[in-house]
């Protein structure tokens, strides 16, 4: 396969605004390793202007269709937009079917919109491991708004909240009743809740349930109150309101000095994730760990050693450097 990228030449073409160069750099970021680090080091000083909005929610809630509609609105405001659309990688074949572009067809004719589909490639948080990096790249490419659409998530795929300034949770009337809405997880990360498919007869009731359970939360005075909005991506209703509330949330963050805090949070989680990733890879490759596991697992199996005792033993033996 292709290898031996000339990264400085690519970066030069990237800064000249060439779409093909940006696309190739994203591929390099996806593949990770030394080349990816070189790219990031090259662009890092030019990132942090773009505003990042995450869209998350269960499969089939209409995230892609909504994304398409809000992109059109933000384009009218003159924003340059980068879209990262993530779909799941099959844990069986390693392949993926990335279908988000189907809902965004006419966007590929707009030079100020760049859409990239990413496969989750084994990440379990509802996003791809290189989401941060690709976001940075689109930021450095001059996009001022980055929209990130997660894999269709359940209640525990919450990593988007570490990546985005504004998190929009997209639900549909079938998403569950008020008790579902009180559960931990998805309902705790939304700045804005969208009840999509509002043409559905149960939509208003479902939106009211969400609003009710949000009211049970103890939100300190002056903090952002999560909002609930009814939309229909198909009938194109409620979209203007959604765009307005995204802007409102942004103003709230800006006026309260929270953009900088968010930036710190995003960077902190990045360093931590990259470090954990390294440690995991190193441990996975370590002959010593494999050897000890091979020799001592029998003891665990035979009840001579508890699993935790073996872990302690491994911890003492293995140096992570």
């Amino acid at each position, binding site marked *: 396969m292709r290898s031996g990228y000339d990264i400085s030449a690519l970066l030069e073409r990237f800064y000249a605004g060439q*779409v*093909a160069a940006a*696309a190739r750099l994203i591929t390099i970021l996806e593949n990770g390793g030394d080349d990816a680090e070189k790219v990031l080091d090259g662009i890092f000083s030019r990132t942090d202007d773009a505003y990042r909005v995450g869209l998350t929610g269960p499969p089939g809630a209409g995230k892609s269709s909504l994304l398409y509609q809000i992109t059109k609105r933000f384009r009218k405001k003159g924003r340059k937009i980068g879209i990262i659309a993530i779909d799941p990688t099959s844990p069986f*074949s390693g392949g*993926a079917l*990335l279908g988000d*572009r189907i809902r965004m067809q006419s966007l590929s004719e707009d030079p100020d919109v*760049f859409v990239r*589909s990413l496969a989750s490639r084994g990440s379990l948080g509802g996003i791809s491991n290189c989401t941060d990096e690709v976001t940075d790249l689109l930021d450095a490419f001059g996009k001022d708004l980055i929209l990130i659409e997660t894999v269709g998530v359940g209640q525990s795929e919450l990593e988007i909240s570490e990546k985005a300034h504004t998190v929009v949770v997209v639900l549909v009337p079938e998403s569950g009743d008020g008790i579902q809405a009180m559960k931990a997880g998805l309902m705790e990360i939304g700045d804005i809740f969208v009840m999509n498919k509002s043409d559905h007869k149960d939509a208003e009731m479902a939106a009211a349930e969400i609003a009710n359970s949000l009211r049970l939360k103890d939100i300190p005075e002056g903090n952002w109150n999560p909002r609930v909005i009814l939309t229909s991506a198909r009938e194109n209703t409620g979209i203007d309101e959604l765009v307005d509330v995204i802007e409102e949330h942004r103003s709230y963050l800006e006026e309260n000095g929270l953009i900088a805090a968010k930036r710190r949070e995003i960077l902190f989680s990045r360093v931590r994730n990259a470090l954990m990733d390294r440690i995991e890879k190193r441990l996975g490759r370590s002959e010593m760990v494999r050897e000890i596991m091979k020799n001592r697992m029998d003891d665990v199996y035979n009840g001579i050693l508890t699993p935790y005792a073996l872990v302690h033993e491994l911890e003492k033996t293995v140096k992570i450097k």
Partner: protein
Amino acid sequence: MPRKIRVLVAKPGLDGHDRGAKVVANALKDAGMEVIYTGLHQTPEMIAESAVQEDVDVVGLSILSGAHMTMFPRVMQLLREKGAEHIIVFGGGIVPVEDVKKLEDSGVSKIFGPGTDTRDIVKYINSVFSE
């Protein structure tokens, strides 16, 4: 880590029969490739631009409408204009034998006719990238 083969599967033009394209997209996914499926009614411009943004290695076009002699050359030309001539273009659908020859001579890498075993398509793409 070897990079994954990325494939864009698209249906250009007005023909609305996407069963074949979906079967192929699914087979390529099951073979471990990342498949971007863009759906029906794509213009050559949309296809070429999507292929560039997605940095795919392969574009697969499914045409059952008879417009293949227009669509294939146009997509190939646009890819060249966008500096993406490295992308391999293959096709499937109802294409008469004499046109298959013409298309393959003009740079389309391969046309798969009706009844093709999806495993042959997988094998073909893998063989192109194992060189």
